[in-house]
């Protein structure tokens, strides 16, 4: 899938742990881990909103479109 989640990069920049972020935005650690590892198939606007609010960033910082090298 050419849509990549860059949550790990933003978290690293802001030195936020997965557990801390999960607590702050109110989703489970397992779900946040799925999102971070790029296994998620979709993201709710409410989750995106909470992430942007807590990490003080734009949706574009978290999700990017990267064309596959093969294509």
């Amino acid at each position, binding site marked *: 899938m050419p849509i990549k989640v860059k949550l790990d990069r933003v978290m690293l920049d802001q030195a936020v742990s997965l557990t801390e972020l999960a607590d702050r935005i109110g*989703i489970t650690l397992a*779900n*946040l881990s*799925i*999102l971070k590892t790029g*296994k*998620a*198939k*979709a*993201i*709710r606007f409410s*989750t995106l909103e909470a992430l942007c609010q807590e990490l003080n960033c734009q949706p574009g910082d978290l999700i990017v479109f990267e064309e596959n090298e093969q294509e």
Partner: protein
Amino acid sequence: METQVTARSLKILLLFLNLSWWTTLIGGGLLLLIVIVIPFTDRDATVERSFRAEVNLKDTSAFQVKSTSGEAGSIEFKEPILAKITLPETRRTQSTEDWILIPIVAFALGISLWFIHLLRQICRSVRDGEPFTLINAKRIRLLALALFLGTVLGDNLQSLFRMFAARGVQPDGFTFSASFGIGGEILFLVLILMVLSEVFRLGARMQEDQKLTI
């Protein structure tokens, strides 16, 4: 309360399926054993040979039908009738029918066990709370296949066997008949199962999407 009722009905269903499984396995296994042993017994002995055959009644004069006013009508059998024919026979060598019976019984037993096994697996997945899975969609498709093979192939094999068993027998007043084909009702059931399988497949995908939506 509703969940308890569902759990109870599911338990009863599973119990019934388990019972069917063991009954079919033991009963069918014993039948297969008997069928395998038959060719090796009763040699050079006069025995009664019974077989079922599809017959067409040509002479229906023995049958009478009257209207409510008492007037005589006529009767004609349009479809073949299943009859049990018993003949005295000297069994000299191992007969071909005996050998043919072995794969037929083995096939019927295998298909029956496969069918029950698939149903059990589906019921177990429902009990475990995971009914909408791709494997269940595949199981339903296989159920349709088992149903198709079991009935269509089974019925036609049975007709073939009956035809074979009736060879050399001289009928008087009737003729032997054999009906081959595919039952419309079975095709309809197979179609329903295939549609259900697709519903399960889509359900499984939707459930996975739902699970992976954060």
